Structures are given as C-alpha cells and as structure tokens.
C-alpha cells in the first residue's frame, strides 16, 4: 500500500514542479504577479509532497514492507530500527529520493526568502527548478524507490554492514545536500548575470556559497572520520574516486568564496566568479556521475547504477549551456578596476584561486584517467595515493603559505620593504615558537615547518584582535566591557573574522595531516592472550577475545590493556564483525586518544587458541584534524549567521577594512 502511495506522491510533486516552472517563466515573461504567486505556492506544495514521499519510504522501512523492491533489497528483519534511516539512502533509488528531498528543502528556503517581485531571484529559481525537475524525473521514471517487487519475501537482503556506523547517520546526507546544494550559488549567479543587478545580490550569493561550502566541509570531515574509525586501516583519506569527486567541488567552492571577497571589496573578478561557479556546478555533477555511473571503480559504489548516462547527458547540456551563457554575457562582466601590484591581497587571492583550480583539475584528471586508458588502450590501470600525494601535496602546501600571508596584506598595493619591516618580528617569533613546540613533541621537520605557518598566521590574527579589542582606550578598561566589545567588533566585520577563524581551523587540519603523514608509525604484533608488547612509549597487554554470534553476523572483540610511559590508561577493545551474507568484515578499531596522539589498534587474524595479529599504529596530532574542522565550521557560521551579521549592511561598500 505504501508503494503506490509513495509513487503517487513523487509523480504528483514532479507535476507540481513542472507547473511551477511553466508558470514562473510565464510570470516573468508577462510580468504577471499572479502567475509568479502561483509558481511560488506550487513550489511550496511540491516541497510538502516531497517530504511526505520521504516519510512514506521511511515508514516502509520501519514496518518492513518488503513488497517494495527497494526496501527488500536494503533492509532485513535483523536490522535495528534506528538503522532504517541509513537503509533509506543506502542504495541508488533511495539516495536519489533523498537528494530530491534535500533539494526541495533548499528550494523552499531559497524561494521563501525573497520577495515576489525580486526578478533576479525569480531568474535564479528557474535554474534551481530545472535541476529539481531533472532529478525528480530521473527518480520517478528511471529509479523509483517505490517500485513493487514481483513477490514479497519473508526477510529482506539486509544492508551493507560497513554502513552500520554512527558516522553514516550524518556523513552521506550532509555530503549529498552539499553536492546538490551547489546548484543554488550557480543559479543565483546566473540570475544576477541576466538581471545585471550585481551589487544587491552579492551578499546573498556570498551567504549561500559559504553555507554550501560549510556543508561540503562537514561532509568531507565526517567521511574521513568514518573511514578512520571503521575501515580498520588507520587512515582517513585514500584518494578514492568518490572522495575525489566530493573534494573537487569543495576546492572550487573554496576558490569562489575567496574571490567573491575581492568582488565585494574591490568590485573586480566579476567574470572570473561566474566562471568559478559554473565550474563548481560542473564538478558537483561530475561527482554525481562518477558516483552513480560506476565508470570508475571505488569503495563507495553503494549507489552505483546504470543511470550514469542520464547524469552525463544532463551534465553535458548544462555545461555547454552555461559556457555559452558565460560567453554571451561576458562583455557585461568586465571589471572597471585592476590589480595594482603583485604584493596585494587581490593578487594573492588570484594566486590562491588559480592554485585551487589546478588541484581540482589535477584531481579530476587523475580520477578519470583510468577511463581513458581503458577505452583507448584497453589497459586497466589504477591511479592512487602516490600520484595525488606527490602532485597535490606540494600545491596544497604552497596554498597554506599563501593563506598565512594573504589575509594580512593590504588591498591594492604595498611595498615589499615596509611589508618585511612590519612582519620580521612576527616571523622571528614564530620560528622560535615552532622550533620550541616541535622540540617538545619531538616533531619531524615538516611538522616544524607546518607549525611555523600555523604560528605565523595565528599570531598575526591575535595581534589584530589585540589591536582592535584591547588597545582602544576609549571604552572603559574592564573585562566585561571588553568582552562585549569583542562581539561588537566581530559582528562589525563578521565576514573577515569568520574567515580568519576558519583559517586557523584549516591550519590545525594541516598540522594534523603533517603529523600523521610524517610521524605516524605502525607495526604488526602477533600476540597470545596474556602476552605483552612494547611500541614506542606504549606498553600493551592482550587480555583475551570474546566471540558472540548474532543472527546476521559474528562479532569478535579483543581486549587490550594499555600503558603509556608506565602509566595505566585502562582496558580497551577492538571489534570485528563478519557478515556471512555479504562475505564482508566490518572493523571497529580501538582508538585511544591521549593528548593529541592516537593509539590505534585493530585485530586482523584470530587463531583457534585466541592468539591474534594486531595492527598497531601511533598517529600523532590526528585529533587536530577533527578539532580543526569544527573550528572551520564555527568560522563559517560566524560569517553567515544573521546574529553576527547585523552591521554587515553598514560596513558594506565602506571601503577597505584593514
């Protein structure tokens, strides 16, 4: 019963969205407010219908309605109730429905927040609606999750066991919302270009771009965290094709939110920004195509399907359209101002943009290269970590250097002499600090260099805060007064301080990556119960393993007592589940966070006498990656949340802020 109902709801909402698009276009053409009104309300009702069809599918999972093919394929009676949420998007059809629903939410938020006569936003809505109709059409006609199965089985197929993890509750939805969400900044910029109303909509574009970028950031970090805790190999990034496909839009969005600052402050780079946003949308669609088309092998092929060609066709059409559009409107987009000097913030942002684009393009090429060799030479090859590490890591490192310099260099122009004179004390101090810290943690020289970049950037940030918060004498010198002042000042220039907070977070992530890649060590230990071993300054005793058998899997739990520097940290376990139905193992590593260092162990082979082989890793500074990402997101929130943004309108166009 739920099947036909859900199917009906999806098809109804598709109809409603098509009507909405037609009446919107007619409304714009005829300039008729009633048609625009009607289009708006039909988007609202489309949104409601989408939500209901989503609920329908969730309800089908909860009630184990195996008459629906998708439910039978992706869940089973043994599946605990809370995991039905994961089962919902664990396959191609369901994840498509999820994407449609999240785009419906974004569309609703977007439409709700502009007035009916706002023509720029109406143009933008046309593009979002087109994308919505494409996705919804694909879902309802080609990959309908509500299709009925030919017979109703007693029990379902069950879910891929790797997905049964807390991280899976948030990582895939966040990632999917982020990737589909790229349509919104894309649509806004196209709307802006058509109406020519560049200035009044810039803040809207900025806010949507940063929000989507923030969601993409969270998605990437959650994915890494999931890989780190459950895949059982102690790493967090594998340059897997699907990881790449979510990284590429992130890279371009990063370039975009920075060059938008230049457009806002200096009224430059207009055309370039449009180009970036078109490219970001292209990359997001590329990601969908790679994920669904299954042309490139990946560990993420949960959602692979034969739908690749629809996405490929849509991507080709939309890309050709947007570039024609770009070329047609290009003469309107030239900027009246110019880059004055190489040593200016705009030129640094330009360098940053170009480098981010390069990383994105290199990653794209590496990702699709196997497809070329396969089709041209019929030779299967694989492009992995070594390629990306050797090529991308140096560029990203240069980007970190740019990041530590650019925000603190004046706009327009500065002389190299005065700049150096100003910065030499900070540079010296950061060198000393980084050497000292590195000596404390016994760091590798790349960690020392990363620490230097980190200190150099954050000391400049702190100095700036000191100058504007502590230094002014006009306010009363008491602590609470200063504290209030902080929020006022941060609010007055929330975009800048939000950005600087995010930068600090990114630098922490960089430290974490440097720490794990250059100082991480691993070794395998074969231990019998009761046996002890030493690794670096850790001493650990393997206690024993416990085996429990459940209806769909067997669970092996190994307990280990761990000491660091002679101090007892307690007993920890690593567990491994074997799912015979999938012939698949899911590992939960034992991770003990001590300071910023992780002691990571996972069990690989268990013999009959309970002796086992353990892979033990010591990952220094890895926690900085997770904490850093949280700081990045806080920074992004500061720059978009209305609370911090109150005085934004006032400070806009008021020239440079140092």
């Amino acid at each position: 019963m739920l099947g036909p109902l859900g199917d009906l709801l999806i098809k109804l909402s598709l109809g409603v969205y098509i009507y909405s698009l037609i009446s919107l276009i007619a409304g714009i053409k005829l300039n008729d407010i009633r048609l625009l009104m009607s289009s708006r309300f039909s988007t609202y009702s489309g949104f409601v219908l989408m939500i209901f069809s989503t609920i329908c599918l969730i309800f089908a999972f909860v009630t184990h309605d195996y008459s629906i093919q998708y439910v039978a394929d992706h869940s089973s009676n043994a599946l605990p109730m809370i995991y039905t949420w994961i089962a919902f998007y664990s396959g191609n059809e369901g994840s498509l429905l999820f994407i449609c629903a999240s785009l419906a939410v974004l569309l609703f938020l977007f439409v709700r927040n502009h007035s009916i006569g706002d023509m720029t936003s109406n143009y933008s809505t046309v593009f979002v609606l087109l994308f919505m109709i494409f996705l919804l059409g694909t879902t309802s006609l080609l990959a309908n999750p509500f299709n009925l199965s030919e017979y109703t089985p007693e029990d379902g197929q069950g879910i891929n066991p790797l997905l049964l993890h807390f991280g899976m509750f948030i990582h895939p939805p966040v990632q999917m919302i982020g990737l589909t969400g790229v349509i919104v900044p894309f649509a806004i910029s196209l709307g802006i270009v058509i109406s020519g109303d560049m200035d009044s909509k810039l803040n809207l574009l900025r806010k949507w771009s940063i929000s989507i970028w923030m969601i993409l950031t969270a998605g990437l970090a959650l994915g890494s965290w999931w890989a780190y805790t459950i895949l059982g190999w102690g790493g967090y990034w594998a340059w897997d094709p699907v990881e790449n496909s979510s990284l590429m839009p992130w890279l371009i969005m990063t370039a975009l939110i920075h060059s938008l600052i230049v457009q806002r402050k200096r009224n430059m780079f207009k055309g370039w920004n449009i180009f970036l946003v078109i490219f970001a949308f292209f990359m997001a669609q590329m990601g969908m195509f790679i994920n669904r088309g299954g042309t490139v092998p990946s560990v993420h092929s949960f959602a692979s399907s034969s739908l690749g060609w629809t996405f490929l066709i849509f991507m080709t059409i939309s890309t050709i359209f947007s570039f024609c559009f770009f070329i047609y409107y290009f003469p309107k987009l030239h900027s009246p101002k110019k880059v004055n000097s190489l040593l200016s913030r705009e030129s640094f942002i330009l360098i940053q943009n170009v480098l981010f684009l390069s990383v994105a393009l290199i990653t794209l090429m590496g990702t699709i290269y196997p497809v070329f060799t396969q089709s041209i030479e019929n030779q299967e090859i694989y492009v992995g970590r070594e390629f990306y590490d050797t090529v991308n890591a140096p560029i990203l490192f240069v980007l970190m250097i740019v990041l530590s310099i650019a925000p603190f260099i004046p706009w327009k122009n500065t002389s190299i002499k005065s700049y150096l004179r100003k910065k030499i004390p900070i540079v010296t101090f950061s060198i000393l600090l980084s050497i000292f810290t590195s000596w404390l943690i016994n760091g590798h020289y790349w960690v020392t260099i990363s620490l230097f970049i980190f200190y150099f950037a954050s000391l400049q940030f702190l100095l700036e805060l000191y100058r504007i918060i502590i230094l002014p004498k006009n306010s009363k010198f008491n602590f609470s007064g200063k504290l209030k002042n902080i929020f006022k000042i941060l609010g007055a220039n929330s975009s800048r301080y939000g950005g600087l907070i995010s930068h600090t977070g990114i630098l922490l992530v960089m430290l974490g990556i440097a720490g794990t890649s250059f100082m991480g060590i691993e070794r395998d230990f074969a231990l019998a119960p009761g046996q002890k071993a030493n690794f670096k300054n850790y001493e650990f005793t393997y206690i024993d393993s416990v085996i429990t058998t459940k209806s769909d899997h067997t669970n092996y739990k190994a307990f280990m007592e761990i000491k660091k520097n002679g101090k007892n940290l307690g007993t920890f376990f690593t567990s491994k589940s074997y799912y015979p139905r999938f012939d698949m193992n899911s590992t939960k590593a034992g991770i003990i966070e001590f300071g910023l260092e992780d002691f990571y162990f996972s069990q690989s082979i268990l013999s009959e006498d309970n002796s086992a082989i353990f892979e033990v890793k010591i990952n220094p500074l890895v926690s900085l990656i997770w904490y850093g990402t949280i700081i990045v997101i806080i920074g992004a929130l500061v720059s978009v949340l209305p609370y911090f943004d109150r005085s934004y309108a006032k400070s806009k166009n008021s020239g440079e802020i140092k």
Partner: protein
Amino acid sequence: MLVSCFYNQQTNLTENEIRYLNLETKIKCPICPAETIAESNTKIAKDLKNFIKTKIDDGWSDKKITEFLVSKYGIEILASPEKKGIGLFLWIIPIIILVIAFITFIILYFNVREKRIYS
C-alpha cells in the same frame, strides 16, 4: 634543540619496516575496487603483505618486488602507474595544468590592467 627538530629521530622502526610501510601503499589489492593492500582487509591483501615482508627480509630490492608483482598481476596491481608508457601522460598532466594556471594568472592579472589603460 634546533638540530633535534630537523632530524627525524623519533621512529624506532627498522629500515626494513620503513621499506615495507612504503611499499604496501604502492600495491593495490587485486580484488578491491579502490584500495591499496595497506587499506584493505581482504585475505589476498594480507597474503600480499606477508609476501612483501618475507621478500624484504630475503633481501629483495623494492624494484624487484614490484616487478615481480607486475609480471604476475599486470600493471593494474600498482596503486599509481609508473612514469613510463601508458602512465607517463598522467604524470605530465599536472605540469600542463600548472603551466595553464600560470598563464591564466598572467592573463587575469594583465588583462584587467589593459582595460584600465584603454577605457
């Protein structure tokens, strides 16, 4: 203190272990879609790891080990293609992209400049 920071003295791994850690990220698990043997949990990955370990202890060079694996499984066993033959172009792509990036930078930088002069 300065010397200690620029000298990596904190690993107590043997040279063979470092070679092994380096090699295992360069060999792909033959049956996995996109994982190296360092990442994979499959049995064949474990076997390959053991193979590499024993061969390193037997005194084989890294090159000999990879060449042996390539002759047995074909070049798709390598996690990244070699810088020759079919893989060569892949390694040239980044250079091309960086050159294009540099040209783009110059164009954007000077193009905007000219407009000011003529307008």
